[in-house]
């Protein structure tokens, strides 16, 4: 057959025509679908194996929890029908709701739940704290199991309901039997959505579909508690690494929900028709600067106090967040605005005093600490905006009081590796690094591993303080919120005294979504729920 311009054109037209039905299908969106751009990529599908937030988001889609915290951060039953405590407060009995099913259609049993709790506690700080007091977890029948304690413990439900990572997700017993150090390979939950494994493209797309067997509780949705009414057929996570592109996609209507638009893009997004900016997680994030307690100069409490005075929350927040509408300074180690957000002892921070006065006091403390100009290595993650700004501000603040600061620049991956090095700074270790945590996790002295002060067994920075550990135990044993708050007051005073770390204030991250298409988004700290969300246009 001769090939000429005309036959080529004909072939092209035929190919285009063959594509036409596909075009029609591609343009017909499922009626109840939401496209969501999360803050990061879902790289690990096991929300117990890793503490990464994106894995917790994934977990909240497909798994359910025994308890969930409501909007007031109080634990409420979720998969559990009834929970009773023995008179001596040592035996907690849990009865599961009737009719709970896994995504493969098999019933959820008490045996599954015990196996899941045991795997979770091996990886979770709060779980480990609880299980130090657990003597047994007997299964009574298909729907009933117990947690038996050797001493009363006030945080059993809080630990099972917490939203900081890793959450206590329920999995099938054979899946939960996987070694906690190994990633699970089957993703069968009992939660409101099912994971569509065939459409999973790491770094690009994650798809969930409605679990038709899910039976929500009767109560209205509140936090991650209450009735998880599934009003969507599909939820598609589009991983868009470029914030400007995600913002444009939201404005053009290609996506419905953008989790973390950068603050500087908000004015443009807010002006776009149909786009709404809202703050759902009011506790937001807490910045903290970890000082290395193992090596000079910050193995000396006077040098730590000097750093605490020298580092300015306001300087950091202005540089990193910029818009005062979204940040605030805070004198609490437990998140201002949370039930434990006490600021007792914060006067040592001299937050109201002029910077020059604080710096003069810091210089004096540094002199008393015997600081002799040794280099102070500040880990500097240059690839994350907030981290980059934080390191630069911290370095400048410390230099202003006479510290010899060396910035060790790398990407975040480099910082994550180096921060675990307990050697002296000259041998690959470090003195200072910055990070941030969720305001909700930070509000609990137990849930956040960073609150531990157990020396070399503690989180990076390795603070050690016996009184702090004693107070943490008292806090965990306290019977109610009022009693815990009282312990938190003493704890905050003590933490500021020995300088556990240096808090750098709080900020919230607004979300942006198409209010002309979806409604019912729930304010939940640290996960993004899609139950209760409705696509109406």
């Amino acid at each position: 057959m001769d090939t000429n311009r005309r036959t080529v054109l004909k072939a092209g037209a035929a190919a285009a025509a063959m594509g036409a039905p596909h075009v029609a299908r591609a343009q017909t969106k499922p009626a109840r679908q939401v496209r969501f751009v999360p803050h990061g990529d879902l790289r690990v599908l096991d929300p117990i194996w890793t503490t990464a937030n994106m894995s917790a988001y994934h977990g909240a889609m497909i798994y359910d929890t025994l308890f969930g915290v409501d909007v007031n951060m109080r634990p409420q039953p979720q998969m559990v029908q009834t929970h009773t405590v023995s008179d001596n407060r040592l035996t907690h009995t849990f009865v599961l709701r009737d009719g709970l099913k896994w995504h493969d259609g098999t019933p959820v049993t008490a045996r599954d739940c015990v196996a899941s709790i045991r795997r979770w506690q091996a990886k979770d700080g709060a779980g480990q704290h609880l299980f130090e007091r657990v003597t047994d977890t007997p299964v009574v029948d298909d729907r009933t199991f117990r947690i038996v304690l050797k001493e009363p413990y006030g945080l059993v439900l809080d630990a099972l309901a917490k939203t900081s990572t890793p959450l206590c997700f329920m999995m099938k017993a054979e899946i939960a039997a996987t070694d906690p150090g190994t990633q699970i390979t089957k993703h069968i939950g009992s939660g409101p959505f099912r994971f569509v494994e065939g459409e999973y493209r790491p770094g690009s797309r994650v798809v969930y579909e409605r679990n038709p067997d899910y039976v929500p509780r009767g109560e209205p949705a509140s936090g991650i508690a209450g009735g998880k009414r599934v009003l969507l057929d599909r939820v598609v996570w589009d991983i868009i690494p470029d914030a400007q592109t995600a913002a444009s996609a939201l404005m053009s209507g290609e996506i419905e929900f953008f989790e973390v638009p950068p603050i500087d893009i908000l004015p443009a997004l807010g002006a776009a028709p149909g786009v709404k900016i809202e703050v759902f997680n009011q506790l937001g994030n807490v910045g903290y600067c970890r000082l290395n307690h193992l090596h000079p100069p910050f193995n000396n409490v006077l040098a730590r106090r000097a750093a605490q005075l020298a580092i300015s929350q306001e300087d950091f927040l202005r540089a990193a967040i910029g818009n005062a509408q979204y940040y605030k300074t805070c004198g609490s180690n437990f998140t201002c605005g949370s039930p434990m957000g006490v600021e007792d002892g914060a006067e040592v921070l001299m937050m109201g005093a002029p910077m020059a006065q604080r710096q003069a006091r810091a210089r004096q403390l540094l002199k008393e600490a015997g600081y002799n100009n040794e280099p102070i290595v500040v880990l500097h993650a240059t690839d994350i905006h907030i981290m980059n700004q934080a390191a630069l501000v911290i370095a400048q603040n410390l230099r202003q009081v006479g510290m010899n600061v060396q910035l060790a620049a790398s990407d975040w991956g480099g910082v994550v590796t180096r921060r675990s090095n307990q050697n002296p700074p000259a041998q690959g270790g470090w003195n200072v690094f910055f990070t941030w945590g969720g305001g909700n996790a930070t509000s609990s002295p137990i849930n956040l591993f960073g609150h531990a002060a157990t020396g070399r067994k503690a989180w990076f920075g390795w603070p050690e303080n016996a009184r702090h550990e004693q107070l943490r135990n008292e806090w965990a044993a306290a019977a109610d919120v009022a009693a815990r708050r009282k312990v938190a007051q003493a704890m905050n005073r003590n933490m500021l005294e020995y300088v556990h770390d240096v808090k750098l204030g709080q900020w919230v991250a607004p979300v942006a979504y198409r209010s002309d298409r979806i409604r019912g988004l729930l304010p939940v700290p640290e996960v993004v729920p899609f139950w209760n969300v409705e696509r109406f246009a």
Partner: protein
Amino acid sequence: MIAYVIRRLLATIPVMAIVGVFVFLLLHLAPGDPAAIIAGDNATEQNIAAIRTRLGLDRPLIEQFGSWVWAIAHGDLGVSMFSNLPVTTLVLQRAQPTISLTVTTLLVAVTIAITIGVLAAWKAGTLVDRVVMGFAVLGFSVPVFVVGYLLVYVFALQLRWLPVQGYVPIEQGLWPWARNLILPSLALGLAYVALIARITRASMLEVLAEDYIRTAHAKGVATVPVLLRHALKNAAVPIVTVIGIGVALLISGVVITESVFNIPGVGRLVVDAIARRDYPIIQGVMILFAGVYVLVNLCVDIVYTFLDPRIRY
């Protein structure tokens, strides 16, 4: 010729071996611990150590290298440390978007560049020539992401003709596939238009000054056949060389375009993998890239023999 091709193909083995050794050593000697990144921010040191052991990262470097080479020799590029998926699967998932973007960009770039390059040479010294060369300077000077955002602003947000982002597989229809590639191809192609147009113009100017061109004109051959059949064919060797380099540059250079237009290609796969130290992906993709580079160069060398019969291997 066949012996030459076989020799060149065999030569890819030591090239890829050297690339493999360098990539492996650079990755493992550079700071970064995938276990710490996998474990997440709230992880304990014990959790991180357990993951490190599970991934085999606590084994001696030489042992890890040996295992990797053994697997590669058996066609196994390994498994992603994060997603647990085979590297081959991940690369195949990403190959179509990258190949589509590369091919459409080259088509756009070569078509426009050769046309305006020939035009500029033919009209050398005139306003047309100056406009073409000005455009070429602009193409080189403006970064891809700036062009990308401008195109998005005009054609996607203001005129609403084309989508902002994303990739539609060709199986879902020719037009949806092409529609999502127009803006990225234009953005990415601009620099290559500039590069190829300048080389085309320079090469054409040299050939147009040759005696046989004057002879062709004297014989009464029309301008277009002179330009295309006599001049362009003889000016083609340097142009093909630049296109070949362009293909190699495109493969590594698409990452910014893939990010700006949210195209899930191989470039983004490898950059994400570098950020989180997913060694098997980085090593596997680098080996593949090395192979593609060698093959592209081989193709360019073979094309030379068709353009210039004097070239023999």
